[in-house]
């Protein structure tokens, strides 16, 4: 999995909850391509139609608060969002994202220094985040070794699948 991303920023506020990321009325959908159509619908109804692959979501504190629904991470992942940068993440969303290999990074102050449409570069390995439109540079909190290991393997399922195969041999 790549760890270096450059894309257009979409800016969101603080406490973006999972009902805004993925409204409860669509929870019965199971196909990723259907789930992606409602990405961030509660916060910006046009997001799904305007976001391009590799775009970057920037948010304030407590991104992903609320329910444990994994659809919130699935919808961002299947919308080909490159990486989510927030001032902090809610715990269950954070776990779900890592498990599904949706790249994310915590960076204090980021939501005040990026505007909608800025071009942003994020390097997960070093934690370096550069706003290419303003040339400002920030350093986010690097992921733990275990989280990075899951991300690089394309998600926890791949790791378990290998373990299951090993056990059977």
């Amino acid at each position, binding site marked *: 999995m790549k760890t270096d991303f450059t894309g257009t920023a979409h800016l969101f506020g603080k406490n973006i909850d999972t009902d805004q990321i993925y409204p409860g009325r669509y929870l*019965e959908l199971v196909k990723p391509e259907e789930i992606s159509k409602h990405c961030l619908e509660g916060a910006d109804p046009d997001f799904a139609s305007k976001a391009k692959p590799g775009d970057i979501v920037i948010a304030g504190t407590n991104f992903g608060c609320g329910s444990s629904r994994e659809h919130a991470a699935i919808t961002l992942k299947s919308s080909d969002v490159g990486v989510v940068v927030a001032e902090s993440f809610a715990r269950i969303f954070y776990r779900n994202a890592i498990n599904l290999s949706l790249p994310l990074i915590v960076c204090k102050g980021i939501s005040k220094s990026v505007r909608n449409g800025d071009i942003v570069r994020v390097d997960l390995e070093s934690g370096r985040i550069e706003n290419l439109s303003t040339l400002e540079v920030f350093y986010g909190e690097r992921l733990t070794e275990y989280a990075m290991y899951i991300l690089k393997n394309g998600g926890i399922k791949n790791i378990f699948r290998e373990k299951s195969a090993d056990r059977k041999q």
Partner: protein
Amino acid sequence: MHAIEKMLARAAGKEFVTAGEIINCSIDFLELNDLYLQVVKSFYEMGGERVWDPEKAAFVFDHYSPAPTIRTAQIHKEMREFAEKQGFSHHFDINKGVCHQVMPEAGIVRPGMILVATDSHTTTHGAFGAFGTGIGATDAACVLISGELWFRVPEVMKITVTGTTADNVHAKDVILNIIGNLKADAAVYQAVEFTGDYIESIGVADRMTICNMAVEMGAKTAYMKPNRAVLDYVESRYGYNYVLDETDTGFEYCREEFFDISDLKPQIACPSSVDNVFPVDEVEPVKIHQAFIGSCTGGRLEDIGAAAEILKGRRIADSVRMVVIPASMEVFSKAVSKGYVQILIEAGATFNAPGCGPCLGTHAGILAKGENCVSSTNRNFPGRMGSTEAGIYLASPALVAYSAYKGCLSDPRLSREDSK
């Protein structure tokens, strides 16, 4: 160590753990709700064949109960088939209720256990001195295969609550006040312990309501040292074979907060965040269209009883529809015996089958654009109960019931003087 750390250490097979450490814990129980057929799919995708322990996992059909659509009926069908094939010893179908209510009722929850569920309100079980936390579908599938899950040992925040509440001020008002003061991200990745003479004095239902909403401050888990009421409940349903962990004297909390609730007024969380909380007398008497009593937060016997006390001999306003959903069939049955159901039906309420109902906007009382709902539930995010252009006001069951009677947001402390 804190009691929570002792539980985690025991589950990880370690003598000692400290905050920030990543540990692998064995899980005492995994509860799966009916939103996530993905758990079953992921289980097989990861090479799973048999679950680690069919006595330690169960489905609870609550979010889509009874099935409102063909798709959700299919989800229930495939889950029933999986439970049967794997030989699950517990199964909670559409006739049981909301997961966090039926698990303690069934004698599964006890102090000292590690309980995970595919639902964020799993913090509820801190009321029983258990470590309960919500997880996603993929984490749940990992538990189904291995019986284990990694955790970061959380820092612990202590919230001391003292005093006694006034008439028609409830545990729901206490927790809304705490969240309103500390805000929605106060405890992200931390555990929250509630203590103080108020917490020691309250019963199981009120403790569950407070721990339930700890997740709305971002808490990973909640904890209350079990009191006699909790232990009586656990001993009558589970038995005596549990571990009571004590926090060591001198344990250092990451933060301490104090609340005296003696003068607390009824509270309302206004649209559209749970921390947007004001005392009732600072909120406009907004006209309401729906009043809802239900959910894992506010659908217990005591909640329905509080609503019945307010509405006895009264009719709700013509402009209001009132939906009541008991949190479980046991609650429903007791509410019938106590006469609460008859009182509420005569007041004009509509009852639905036990389950989550409209709390998360899937069925059984969805809101239209421009409507306002006063609700005993836990979240008022945009679109949570239907249209993103509906307003949700969170409050105690007493405030919900009195507002249904008046047709607008109203202070339940005025109920007694109000001529019947």
